[in-house]
C-alpha cells in the first residue's frame, strides 16, 4: 500500500535522466535542459532513464554497455535518432525532438507504476577477476598493498610527483567517451597524482558537432549577415551553458540557453554579463591556466586564437563586413579566462553586427569564399587532432583547471555538415 503510494509520488516527480550523447546528440540536450519536467543528472546511478541521443559508433558500444548497466533497477532506455543495441529490442526509439520530453515522462511513469519492467543487463554479471582469498586481509596478496582485491590492483606509486615533490600514488584510468564533463566522444587515458594530472593520452577524439545550417549555406551563396551572426552568437551561448554547468552555475547556464533560444538582433548580453560577474564566474580559480602557446592557438583558430591576441578572422576579407565597421575583437593572454572574455565579447559583437546589418537593409555576405565559423576558419575536413593539444597542455594542471580548460576550447568542432542521422534534424524552438 505504502509502496504503491510512494511509487505514484515518484512517478509524478521530475524524471532523472542521464543523457548519453552520440554524434549529433547535443541537439536533444538544449530543449531538454529547458524542459521543466526533466532533471539532467551527471551520473547514471542517479538516473531512472538513460537517454541515448544521436548515433553511437560501433567501437564505442562496449563503453555504452558499461554505462547502461550502471543504472540502478528499475530503469529504461530511450533512443533518440539512434538504433537500440542488440538485446534491447523492446527499448523505445523516438526521432521527433518535439515529443522527446513527453516520451521520457511517460517512460518514467510506466517504470514507477510497474507497467514496464526494467531494461535488461547487457554485460555478464561476473567479477573482472575472480576473488583471491589470500593475504593478511583476504585481498589476494602479501601486505597492505599486494594482491588484486575485486579484480583491480592497488594504486602504487610508479611516477615521481611533478608539483611539489610530495610523491603520492598514481591513479591511472580511462575516462569517456560518455563522461558528462568532457565533450561527447572524447576518451583519454589519464594518470593522476592527487588532483594533479601526470599524463593525458587521447584515445578517441570528440565527435564532430554540427554547426548551424546557415554556415553550410554561406559556403554556397550569399546569406544575410544578421542570420549568420545570430547563429554564431547562439553557438557561443550554448558553449557558455556547458561551461556554466561545469562551474556549478546551472541557473545562469539556463539563462544563457534561453537567451540563445530567443535571440534577435535587438537582444542584449548586458544582463547575463552582469550576473556572471556577480556570481564570480570570471574570478573562479579554475579559470587560471590553460594558456595556449602561439602555434597551438593559431592551429585551433577562432576565438581561441583571438583570445591569445592573434589577429585572424576571415570576416575581415568580406567587403560587406568591413562596411559594417567590423574589426576582429582581440584578447590578451590566451588562457581559459581570456577565452571566456573573448567569447562574450564576440557574442556582443555578433549582436551589434546583426543589428547594423538589418539597419542597412538586411545586408548579405559578399559571396562564397573564406568563411569564419564560430570555432575558426572553415575546414573542408574536421580537424582530427583538435584534441591533440590536450596531451601537452593538461599535465601539471589540477583537475578543476583541466576540466575548465577543456570546456573553454572548441574541441568538437570542425564540421559544418550535419553528422550521420542528423540530415533532417530541425531543432524545436
Amino acid at each position: 500500500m505504502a509502496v504503491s503510494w510512494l511509487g505514484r509520488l515518484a512517478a509524478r516527480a521530475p524524471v532523472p535522466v542521464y543523457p548519453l550523447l552520440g554524434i549529433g546528440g547535443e541537439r536533444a540536450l538544449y530543449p531538454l535542459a529547458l524542459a521543466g519536467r526533466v532533471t539532467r543528472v551527471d551520473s547514471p546511478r542517479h538516473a531512472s532513464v538513460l537517454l541515448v541521443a544521436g548515433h553511437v559508433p560501433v567501437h564505442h558500444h562496449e563503453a555504452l554497455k558499461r554505462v547502461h548497466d550502471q543504472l540502478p533497477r528499475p530503469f529504461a532506455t530511450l533512443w533518440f535518432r539512434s538504433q537500440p543495441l542488440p538485446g534491447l529490442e523492446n527499448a523505445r526509439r523516438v526521432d521527433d525532438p518535439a515529443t522527446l520530453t513527453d516520451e521520457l515522462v511517460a517512460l518514467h511513469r510506466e517504470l514507477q507504476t510497474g507497467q514496464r519492467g526494467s531494461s535488461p543487463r547487457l554485460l555478464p554479471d561476473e567479477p573482472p577477476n575472480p576473488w583471491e582469498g589470500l593475504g593478511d586481509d583476504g585481498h589476494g596478496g602479501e601486505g597492505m598493498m599486494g594482491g588484486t582485491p575485486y579484480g583491480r590492483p592497488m594504486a602504487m606509486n610508479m611516477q615521481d610527483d611533478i608539483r611539489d615533490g610530495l610523491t603520492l600514488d598514481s591513479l591511472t584510468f580511462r575516462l569517456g567517451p560518455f563522461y558528462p564533463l568532457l565533450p561527447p566522444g572524447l576518451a583519454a587515458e589519464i594518470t593522476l597524482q592527487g588532483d594533479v594530472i601526470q599524463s593525458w593520452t587521447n584515445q578517441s577524439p570528440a565527435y564532430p558537432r554540427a554547426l548551424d545550417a546557415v554556415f553550410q549555406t554561406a559556403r554556397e551563396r550569399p546569406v544575410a549577415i544578421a542570420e549568420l551572426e545570430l547563429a554564431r552568437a547562439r553557438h557561443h551561448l550554448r558553449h557558455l551553458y556547458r561551461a556554466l554547468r561545469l562551474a556549478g552555475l546551472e541557473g545562469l547556464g539556463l539563462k544563457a540557453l534561453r537567451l540563445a533560444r530567443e535571440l534577435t538582433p535587438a537582444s542584449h548580453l548586458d544582463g547575463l554579463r552582469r550576473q556572471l560577474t556577480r556570481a564570480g564566474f570570471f574570478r573562479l580559480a579554475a579559470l587560471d591556466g590553460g594558456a595556449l602557446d602561439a602555434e597551438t592557438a593559431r592551429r585551433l583558430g577562432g576565438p581561441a586564437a583571438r583570445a591569445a591576441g592573434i589577429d585572424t578572422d576571415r570576416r575581415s576579407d568580406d567587403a560587406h563586413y568591413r562596411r559594417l565597421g567590423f574589426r576582429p575583437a582581440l584578447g590578451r593572454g590566451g588562457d581559459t579566462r581570456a577565452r571566456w572574455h573573448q567569447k562574450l565579447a564576440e557574442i556582443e559583437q555578433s549582436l551589434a553586427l546583426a543589428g547594423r546589418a538589418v539597419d542597412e537593409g538586411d545586408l548579405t555576405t559578399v559571396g562564397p569564399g573564406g568563411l569564419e565559423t564560430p570555432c575558426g576558419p572553415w575546414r573542408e575536413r574536421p580537424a582530427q587532432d583538435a584534441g591533440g593539444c590536450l596531451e601537452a597542455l593538461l599535465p601539471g594542471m589540477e583537475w578543476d583547471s583541466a576540466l575548465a580548460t577543456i570546456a573553454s576550447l572548441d574541441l568538437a568542432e570542425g564540421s559544418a555538415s550535419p553528422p550521420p542521422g542528423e540530415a533532417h534534424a530541425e531543432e524545436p524552438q
Partner: protein
Amino acid sequence: MELLTLLAVLLIALGAGLALQWPALRRQPLPGYSQRAPFLGGGTPDSHAWNRYHIRYYPMTLLLIAFEMEMMFMYPWAVVFVEKGLMAVMEMGMFLAILSVGIVYAWREGVFKWQ
C-alpha cells in the same frame, strides 16, 4: 506499577526496533559487478582509488593549531597576570616567540593566500 509500565514500553519499543531491523526484511540484493565499478563515462580503471593523496587543507590546520594553542595558554595566563607581574609578561613573550615561528612557517607554506 509505574516501573512495570515503563518496562513494557521499553520492551515494546525495543521489539519494534528489532522487528524493523529484521534481516529478512532488510535484505536487498547486492548490485551487480558492473554497478560496483566506478563510473568513468564508459571508461575503466587500472587500479583501486584507495591511495595516498594530498590533503590540500593541511596548512590551514597548522594555522588553526598555532592560534588555538596561543588562546589555550592566554586564558589561564590572563588570570594570574596581575599576581605574577613582569615574569608572566616574559613567559608569554617567550611562548609567543616560539609560536610565531610556526606562524612564519605557515606563511611560507602559503596559508594566507586565499584561493
